[in-house]
């Protein structure tokens, strides 16, 4: 391998790594707050990417046809709960977000955003995808949130299959590729870096800094961290597990939408591309020990680099090589930890 090829592979690896890192951070956040291993995260990325392409083409965003039924389902569930239980309220955050999601869906269907403004395109994607996180939490996970990690994983797999099954007829089997949001190359002392890579790095740093600020310097952010540190303690100080779960899912879908926007101009995204992405993000999390956000992001960046170099040396085995990373990590964890963390008995 000569240096030019190595540099290209490294660039490629870092671009992949950034997407894996964003996925990894979101998966870890959802896991720490709700104990759900959120394999559905990849679907958010696909939805984000496909929506960006459809908005660029001036088509009606197919995601609206997922968002609106989901919001309706959520409203129906909330109405059933209202009839069954005396003490539930008619006006709640949940119903508010359902109505907002319906409004966004209708708006995107009947007034598809026109124009070439990148900001408009990005805003549309984020507004369409982000509400799906809390809505999925309320419809699929809220009522089983005290179940075991395994049950929650089964539920997440079910949601993944349902979403993927819906996305095939909705988007078709073809790949989607967006027009680049930023063009060109930038010269760094003889090394040409693509502007897209710089753009991705900036977004990644901005997003992680913003998340860090929220988690360490605002009370709601600290409350989310508190849930992940001590679930019982969090309930005892009155942090609503319902709102904490919805917030974690909402942040995950927001991060997913942004990852989708970042990945869309780089590669063809198919309706079923999400699962592999989510798994690679998950590998990053595990390499980082499934506990700390910076380590998860670092692990995911390494996974991205390994992914790209493996593709060069043995492209047929690339995925196997990446998933083989899990083996030493799991061995190390099973030797150093006697019992897994997170699975609380008697909860």
């Amino acid at each position: 391998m000569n240096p030019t090829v190595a540099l290209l592979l490294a660039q490629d690896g870092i671009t992949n790594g950034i997407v894996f890192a964003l996925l990894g951070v979101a998966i870890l956040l959802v896991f720490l707050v709700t104990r759900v291993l959120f394999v559905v995260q990849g679907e958010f990325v696909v939805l984000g990417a496909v929506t960006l392409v459809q908005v660029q083409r001036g088509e009606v965003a197919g995601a609206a046809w997922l968002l609106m039924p989901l919001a309706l389902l959520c409203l129906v569930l909330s109405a059933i709960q209202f009839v069954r239980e005396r003490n539930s309220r008619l006006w709640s955050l949940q119903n508010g977000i359902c109505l907002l999601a319906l409004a966004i869906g209708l708006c995107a269907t009947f007034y598809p955003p026109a124009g070439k403004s990148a900001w408009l395109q990005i805003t549309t994607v984020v507004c369409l995808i982000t509400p799906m996180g809390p809505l999925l939490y309320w419809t699929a996970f809220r009522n089983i949130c005290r179940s075991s990690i395994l049950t929650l994983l089964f539920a997440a797999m079910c949601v993944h299959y349902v979403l993927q099954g819906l996305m095939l007829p909705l988007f078709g089997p073809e790949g989607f590729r967006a027009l680049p949001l930023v063009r060109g190359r930038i010269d760094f002392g003889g090394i040409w870096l693509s502007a897209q890579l710089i753009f991705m790095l900036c977004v990644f740093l901005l997003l992680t800094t913003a998340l860090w600020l929220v988690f360490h310097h605002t009370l709601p952010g600290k409350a989310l961290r508190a849930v992940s540190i001590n679930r019982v303690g969090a309930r005892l100080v009155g942090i609503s597990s319902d709102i904490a779960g919805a917030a974690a899912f909402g942040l995950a879908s927001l991060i997913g939408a942004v990852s989708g926007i970042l990945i869309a101009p780089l590669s063809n995204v198919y309706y079923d591309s999400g699962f592999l992405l989510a798994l690679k993000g998950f590998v990053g999390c595990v390499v980082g020990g499934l506990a700390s956000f910076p380590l998860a992001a670092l692990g995911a960046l390494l996974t991205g680099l390994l992914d790209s170099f493996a593709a060069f040396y043995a492209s047929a085995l690339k995925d196997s090589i990446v998933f083989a990373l899990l083996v030493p990590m799991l061995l190390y964890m099973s030797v150093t930890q006697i019992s897994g963390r997170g699975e609380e008995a008697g909860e």
Partner: protein
Amino acid sequence: MSTLMTVSRLDVRYGQKLAVNQACLDVAAGTITTIIGANGAGKTSLLSGLMGLAARSGSIVFQGRDVSDEPPESKVRRGMILVPERRELFGSMSVQDNLLLGAMAVKATRHSRRDRLDLVYKKYPRLSERRTQQAGTLSGGERQMLALGRALMGNPRLLMLDEPSLGLAPNFVNQMFEWIVGLREEGMSILLIEQNARLALDVAQYAYVMRQGEISPRADAAEMRSREDIAAQYLGPRRKA
């Protein structure tokens, strides 16, 4: 004296096992009510059932309102606050963050939250010295102090203390009980669960005894102290003063 909380026919179960059987109890406003009993009698389960942390049936009326089916977070909002046996602090967060999170359920501005924080720091200066330290690195006594401080941040109407003396050094146990008495003198209503029955009966006005998931009728704490069967079972040999 007005009744703050009335619990009737409370059952708490863990799977098939009935940990608390048809418990009835009252907590009078402005008093310390204690529940004594041997290890495993169901005292902690009773509190878990009251807070809604464990599956339960039966009714809980708090300040004249039926709160039986409410989740823990809305009970906390009403001022039912539990300091659990295992403290349940946020170990990797600072002392100050732990305290601030204690006020999560209170409708408060940043300003009034600061005021409460200053109040707690004034009460427990040790916490103020350790405000940036991680809660997980505190000593047992400091942890208990922090758990109590966190509960006070939530503006409790009823403070439920589960084994506050557990694992504390003897001189710190006395300090703890002085604080508990001090809180009652400020008008706080307290439900105290304690294995150290002698100490608990000394500070309480009313007492219940729990035995294998069943709870006795209410008695005056002073009266219970003088009963011989209680003394023989729970108070141990009387030390000469």
